[in-house]
């Protein structure tokens, strides 16, 4: 299977290593270029600015004091990218906070990776 778009650079922001690793390997099998895996909001911002990914898979609860939504806001202020939130919480938990964020999609864990790939493909 090959990807349909030429946007293929992905930054994974996930503090669970095994989960992040699975996403990385699975995406790579689908010909996506996983630029980096980071576990904190701060690293996410820095990596995003530096690597300018097409997509950022963003967990919400992260290591450190900054959560994924705040990090996404910062990143979106600085670069043009698409944010896909992946969280153990549901979207409703962050309804108000997410109002000011322009994000592509929200997936609740455990994630069916095929659904994620479908979203990526459409962009």
């Amino acid at each position: 299977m090959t990807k349909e778009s030429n946007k293929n650079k992905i930054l994974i922001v996930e503090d669970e290593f095994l989960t992040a690793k699975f996403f990385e390997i699975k995406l790579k099998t689908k010909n996506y270029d996983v630029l980096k895996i980071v576990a904190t909001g701060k690293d996410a911002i820095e990596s995003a600015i530096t690597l300018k990914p097409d997509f950022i898979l963003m967990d919400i609860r992260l290591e450190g004091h900054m959560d994924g939504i705040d990090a996404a806001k910062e990143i979106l202020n600085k670069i043009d990218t698409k944010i896909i939130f992946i969280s153990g919480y549901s979207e409703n938990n962050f309804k108000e906070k997410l109002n000011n964020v322009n994000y592509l999609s929200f997936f609740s864990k455990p994630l069916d990776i095929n659904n994620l790939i479908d979203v990526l493909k459409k962009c």
Partner: protein
Amino acid sequence: MIKYKTNYKLLFYISIILFVICLIMFQYFYQIERQNKIDEIQTHQKLHAKQAIKNFEELINKWDGLLSYLINDKNIKEMNKDGIELINKIYSIYKKELKGITRTNKNGVITYTVPFYPNTIGRNISQQKHMIKLLENHKPVCSDVFKSVQGYDAIVVHYPIFKGTNYDGSIAFLFNFEKITNSILKDIKIGEKGKTWLITSEGYILFSNETFMQKKSIYDVFFNDTDRLLLAKKMLTGEEGIATLSYNHSNQNYYTYYVPVKILNSFWSLGISYSESEITASLLNFRNKLLFLFGMIFIGGILAAYFGVKGWIIVKEESARKKAEVEAKQSEERYKYLFESINISLFQTNLNFELIKANQYFINLFQYNKEEIFKIPFNLLFENVEDKNQIKEELLKNESIKSKEILMVKNNGDKFWASLNATLLKDENGNYISILGSIRDITERKDYIEVLKKHIEEKDLLINEVFHRTKNNLQVIISMLELHNLLTEDKSAQNVISDMIKRLHVMSLAHKQLFQREDLSKISFKSYIEEIFLYLSEFYKNKSNSIELKLNIEDFNILFDLALPCGLMFNELINFFTVNSEPNSRINLILDAYKEDDEIFINILSDFRAKETDKSINENKFDLGLFFSLVENQLRTNITKSFENNFSIKFSFKDNLYDERV
């Protein structure tokens, strides 16, 4: 000035009673007087009658002596010259009273008569009624009244004459009966309509004021006057008595006293009647006086009753008013006592929120003294003056306010949360006059509620976190399995891992459903099955065979503990159909689920044909074996299955197999 309302209804009833009493008394006294009058008249009747009887007896006695002498006189017996001379002499002496003297022989033939009438000598009178009696009995007799040759009404008395023991005729005296009755009976009638009558023992009317009756039989005269005939018959018995009768069927009643008069060997009966109308007429004056008297009594009674009732009402209403005043005073005192002693802060203001009353508890609550609290503006007690205006608006709209929470200020500036209840008071015309209210310090309650809210928020956070961790952990496990799957090249191991991943996803969908609901024990069975099918459709989308699912699931909730095995079973079923069906085939699957009382029914029907059906649907094989194991060991029920024509599975299980966890 107090106006007292007269009770006219009561007055009316009293008037009626008074009228009836007056009427009864009038009747009573009138009847007594009437009876007295009747008694008096009857006494007069008796006296008249006695007098008449006495006169008759005297008359008879007077002539009895003379006649008794004559019948024993030898010359009279022989009727010789001396006898004729004696008769003439007696006649000349008693000429005024005696109208004639007659001597008859033993055959009833007149042999001599004085005054002398030549035609009468030799006349046989034996067939006359009294003569027949005389000739039979040989005893003195008295005739009925007859018209004499002289033209007057007369009676004759015959005394028998015996020669030895042999009857030898009679000597008779002739009397002018009119003269007798005029002297004895004529004047004894009472009143204008009073009647006197004298009848013989045979019913022959000797005398009556109604002259047409005289010398006639009662049976002829009264043949159509039953009452008088009855009376006459009573008189014929020779007894004394009193009778009331109406003459000729008239409404006029007569009171009649009748008494026998002994005449020689027989009797006459004398009756004296008095008319009721004359009694009534004689009572007219008395009746009028009585009417006037009772009329006056009635009017006096009405007036007395009127003033009595009025007085009674005044006394009654006055005492009721005094009682009400006392009660009102007592009530006010009780209210005052209650107002002051109750352990709730109470206040009363006018409509402009100017304090009129406040109990000690209220004063203490706001930490003012009694003088200060009434001087300060009421606004000062409110943290936000707007609250006060809002209260007024609400009161005018709803007339009362219940448990309104407002922030209030004490004298020392401390603020506290208060619950206010207030109501508008009205005057007797329904106009609003003041506001009565109570204030309760609810600071402690508010604090407690805040603590509770915080606890709830913490619990919510904890639940969220638990969900988050559960789902995160599931994600980690799935990720690990996925990594293994990617790294291994063993196909059968890959299938096992894929099955495991699917089962974990099915479980995670149940968690997702649970997390989305407020109920932490149950989830929607229909939504859960639909989500599983969506997930599995996505999972198997690259397979050439397909499953057409028709869900007939009622919308009911199911315990999480029961939903989870159901989800896993459904996953096993879809997996079994997909793996074991022919490539490019299409399987129709119908899933019915409904709930009756506390029993959940599941019916599965499919046109599925396995490649090696008998072998594949072996319960011991893992793929569908897990399905049957879960039904029996987790849902604790038996399954009905048939794979001959169609694939059919039916089972039901108790909804209350587990208690609700939360």
